[in-house]
């Protein structure tokens, strides 16, 4: 029987009551007394010299308070980059400046040039239209390979070239990898694109800056996944405001998918302008503006090769990738194609030699940074498409080729710097094959054929590294931040608990699942526990939510703090019952003395802590509140096997997804319903990438997919009913809950399953010339590939 509360129960998401009844409090719901509005005038050309900005007419327009340009930010820091990658020669990456408002040049369509603050949003917009900007348009670089050619126009004139870094991983292995290829019995090669995506959180970004002149305190309300990180980056590197004079609040946030990790110019602007003008300043991003100002995701072009021996064992992998950085380095951009991508190139397989080369490239496009999965989808897609191609070339079953090369002994140190602590890849594959009735495929394919359709089956594995990350390790890798997490557990006198976490929930359901953990540990109802997050004023310094880290790192901090609470509470209980604290047991909210019938309730102990009349005051402080910081020893490694069945219409190339199954090993699961929901969402985004979504620029750097008229988001009827399973469990060995993280797996594991399925369908239909089709597999692309 499923549990009805605590760890393992599918408790209903308590936050949904307010979300589903219109009572959420999002940043745009925050309106402050005397608030002014800002409208950003953005570049409509991809690359140009900024010769002049004439604001004279705009300044006289109704409601205009002040117009800011790049000149106003000349003594103010630019947006910082949080990760420095070292190239294969040991040199630091090229790191250009990133001004709040353009200075000297504009570098992508959407680059902010001026900001008009006015009494109303409409007045600000009208005045922005009256600003005359003199831009000398320059040739734009959009294509990465062209951007790297000698003589290509430079995005940043002060850099040597458009190459941010040329990263070799592991550089020392390159010779051995090349040698393995020279001895291989078979080499499979694949060139592919990982398409650029726009994140499209349901809630667009919003920022409200506020300044209290009486106390010199600044407050920023913003749509962020990590308010403490924004406070540190903006305070220390941009505006020079110490943490104790700066509060950042990220209230209810309507989805992030990575795009709300980063520190954006608009946040710094609103905080800066509020202080300058002594008035709150608000910015609400429109959907059109989001397409040209939210950091995009993915955008890799890769050549990958696999060397196999005569027995089909994987000998070596070699990759050559160009990764688009866009026009500036967004906060964590350099880490995505390197440490979040290269380290995953072993996948689920015991390939002894791997060499990954990544060239990060500046182009006149919107900056690219982490998007759900961040580097790991790119790695998984390459590897799992490549293995499928190899199986086809060798005439072997793609599942068997994978199984033959599975890692089966743990811990396993990969040749790409990470150590998998645990896993069982055969178990998830076994589970998957049962879920999808593989044996029944031929009958289903025959039925499709009768209807004039080509049916295909795509299967793949994935592994990812999440629960990021050990601070010392990431520091060595170039991170300019630690990646611990924090929690304060405050027990009130009458027994209720408030947990203040450094994690941030923007759809993940932490308010429910985090409460389940504490309820389970103490044995009290979940309703007695409240989870507080999102405000630097009332939460301990924490690094926020991304990289599927919240339960693995934030949850662990909360467990450690709760353990401290329990330890202290036992001492109080021991005193009340005149027993030794080593004899005290806590179960179902009752403290008992082992082997006796003596007991005191949780509430008796919490009351004693705050009304310490009968209390060991000489040995123990009153009160019951503890804080813990947790720094993980390792990443966590969720893994699994995914399968997709498609029908292709041979007349039109249209792909229909008939079924999708996901067998995941997330370690221990706190709330199975929430985990299933996370997988569903990830699958929708992965299938969206595989079939529909694509950020498309023309050669001049104009964004062609600049609205939902041309950027295809998956809709409900594009997607099948999913089969998801997370019953295969190998608990994480190094965190207290044995959890791994589930937020990104669906988006990481699903694109190759879809593409493998379409290629399978075409081959079964006799179109064996189709080796690969780049995502998204639109009808037009599939039909064109079929024509040969």
């Amino acid at each position, binding site marked *: 029987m499923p549990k009805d509360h605590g760890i393992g129960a599918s408790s209903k998401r308590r936050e949904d009551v307010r979300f589903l009844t219109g009572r959420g409090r999002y940043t745009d719901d925050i309106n402050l007394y005397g608030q002014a509005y800002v409208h950003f005038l953005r570049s409509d050309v991809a690359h140009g010299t900024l010769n002049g900005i004439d604001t004279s007419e705009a300044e006289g327009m109704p409601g205009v308070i002040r117009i800011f340009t790049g000149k106003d930010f000349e003594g103010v820091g630019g947006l910082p980059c949080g990760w420095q990658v070292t190239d294969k020669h040991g040199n630091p990456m090229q790191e250009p400046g990133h001004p709040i408002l353009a200075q000297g040049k504009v570098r992508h369509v959407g680059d902010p040039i001026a900001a008009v603050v006015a009494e109303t949003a*409409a007045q600000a*917009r*009208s005045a922005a*239209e009256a600003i005359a900007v003199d831009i000398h348009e320059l040739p734009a670089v959009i294509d990465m390979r062209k951007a790297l050619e000698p003589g290509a126009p430079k995005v940043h004139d002060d850099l040597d070239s458009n190459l941010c870094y040329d990263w070799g991983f592991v550089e020392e292995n390159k010779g051995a990898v090349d040698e393995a290829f020279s001895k291989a019995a078979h080499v499979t090669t694949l060139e592919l694109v990982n398409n650029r995506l726009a994140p499209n959180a349901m809630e667009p970004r919003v920022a409200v800056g506020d300044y209290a002149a009486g106390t010199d305190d600044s407050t920023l309300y913003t749509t962020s996944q990590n308010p403490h990180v924004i406070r540190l980056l903006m305070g220390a590197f941009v505006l020079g405001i110490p943490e104790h004079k700066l509060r950042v609040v990220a209230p209810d946030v309507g989805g992030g998918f990575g795009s709300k990790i980063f520190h954006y110019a608009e946040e710094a602007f609103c905080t800066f302008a509020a202080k300058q003008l002594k008035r709150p300043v608000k910015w609400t991003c429109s959907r*059109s503006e989001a397409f040209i100002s939210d950091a995009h995701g993915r955008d890799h072009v890769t050549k990958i090769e696999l060397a196999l021996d005569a027995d089909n064992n994987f000998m070596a992998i070699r990759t050559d990738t160009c990764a688009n950085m866009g026009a500036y380095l967004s906060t964590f951009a350099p880490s995505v194609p390197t440490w979040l991508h290269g380290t995953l190139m072993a996948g689920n397989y015991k390939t002894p030699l791997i060499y990954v080369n990544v060239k990060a490239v500046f182009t006149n496009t919107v900056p690219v940074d982490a998007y759900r999965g961040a580097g790991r989808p790119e790695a998984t897609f390459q590897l799992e498409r490549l293995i499928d191609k190899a199986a086809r070339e060798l005439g072997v079953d793609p599942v068997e080729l994978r199984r033959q090369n599975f890692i089966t002994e743990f811990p396993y140190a990969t040749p790409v710097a990470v150590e998998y602590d645990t896993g069982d890849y055969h178990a998830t594959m076994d589970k998957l094959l049962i879920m999808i009735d593989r044996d029944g495929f031929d009958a289903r394919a025959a039925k499709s054929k009768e209807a004039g359709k080509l049916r295909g089956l795509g299967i793949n594995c994935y592994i990812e590294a999440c629960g990021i990350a050990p601070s010392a390790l990431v520091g060595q890798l170039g991170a300019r931040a630690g990646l611990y997490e924090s929690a304060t557990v405050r027990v009130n006198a009458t027994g209720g608990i408030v947990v203040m976490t450094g994690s941030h929930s923007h759809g993940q359901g932490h308010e429910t699942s985090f409460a389940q953990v504490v309820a389970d540990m103490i044995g009290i109802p979940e309703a007695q526990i409240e989870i507080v997050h999102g405000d630097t004023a009332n939460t301990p310094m924490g690094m926020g939510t991304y990289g599927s880290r919240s339960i693995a790192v934030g949850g662990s901090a909360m467990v450690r703090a709760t353990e401290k609470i329990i330890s202290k509470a036992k001492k109080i209980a021991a005193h009340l019952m005149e027993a030794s604290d080593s004899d005290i047991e806590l179960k179902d909210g009752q403290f008992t003395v082992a082997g006796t019938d003596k007991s005191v309730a949780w509430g008796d102990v919490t009351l004693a802590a705050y009304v310490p009349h009968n209390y060991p005051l000489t040995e123990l402080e009153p009160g019951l509140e503890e804080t813990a910081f947790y720094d993980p020893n390792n990443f966590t490694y969720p893994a699994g096997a995914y399968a997709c069945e498609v029908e292709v219409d041979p*007349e*039109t190339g*249209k792909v229909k997804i008939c079924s999708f199954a996901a067998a995941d090993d997330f370690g221990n699961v706190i709330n199975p319903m929430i985990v299933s929901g996370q997988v569903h969402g990830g699958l929708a985004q992965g299938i969206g990438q595989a*079939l*529909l979504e*694509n950020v*498309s620029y023309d050669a001049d750097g104009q964004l*062609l*997919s600049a609205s*939902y*008229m*041309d*950027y*295809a*988001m998956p809709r409900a009827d*594009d997607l099948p009913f999913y089969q998801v399973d997370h019953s295969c469990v190998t608990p994480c060995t190094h965190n207290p809950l044995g959890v791994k993280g589930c937020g990104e797996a669906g988006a990481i594991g699903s694109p190759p399953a879809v593409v493998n399925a379409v290629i399978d369908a075409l081959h079964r239909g006799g179109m064996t010339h189709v080796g690969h089709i780049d995502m998204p597999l*639109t*009808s*037009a692309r599939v*039909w*064109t590939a079929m024509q040969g």
Partner: protein
Amino acid sequence: MYNFEFAKPTTIADAVEALGHEEAQALGGGQTLLPTMKQRLAAPATLVSLNAIPEMIGVCLNDAGEVCIGGATTHAMVVREAAAHYPALAALASHIGDPAVRNRGTIGGSLANNDPSACYPAAALASGATIKTNTRDIAADDYFQGMFETALNDGEIITEVRFPVPQTANYQKFVQPASRFALVGVFVAQFADGVRVAVTGASSDGVFRWTEAEAALSGDFSKSAVDGLSVPSGSMISDLHGSGDYRAHLVKVMTGRAVAAAG
């Protein structure tokens, strides 16, 4: 959106008068115009709503057996009220946009805008409909004059659209995946005196009749009749959603499917 004046006349005469003012713009359901105004790409001084004119709303059959649809009739009303008279037309209307669009958007608005990817132009052209305005009757063959171009004069209002009802008809839409407008839409209508085939979504000239298919289908109304034909790809739209060759191919496939479905 910029500020504008708003008029909501209740008679055609008042609407015509209101549209005579400078920078006045007729408003049907607003499903194209309002988003355009929100983006500040259109800035009419006055919007003249045509949605409160009773004589322009509704579906009926006239003595000639034509389905007559008032210019301000919503797609949703066409779905409900034309189904018994002209099922293929009602089916087309039922797949325009989403429920919100269908309950605001109007047939007159769609035909006046003549979006090259809209559905209604294909139905009007394939049916040989008559576009009735406040001043004249315009045959569909004369009405559509290229992408977003029509025979309407400034201030002229579509008051009614009259559809001759074919013996059998069908519309096949292959959707553009983002907008779900027609990447290619083909309306096939078989009349006693021949077959008409109208194509939307595909051509940079807007909706057009595929006369070669009409000739073939008039002799043999079967899917195989179009097998040997090919659509010249020269005027086909090429964009990020598909090449001209792909659209030309889809025209043929969708025509065949429409014929098969019309049966």
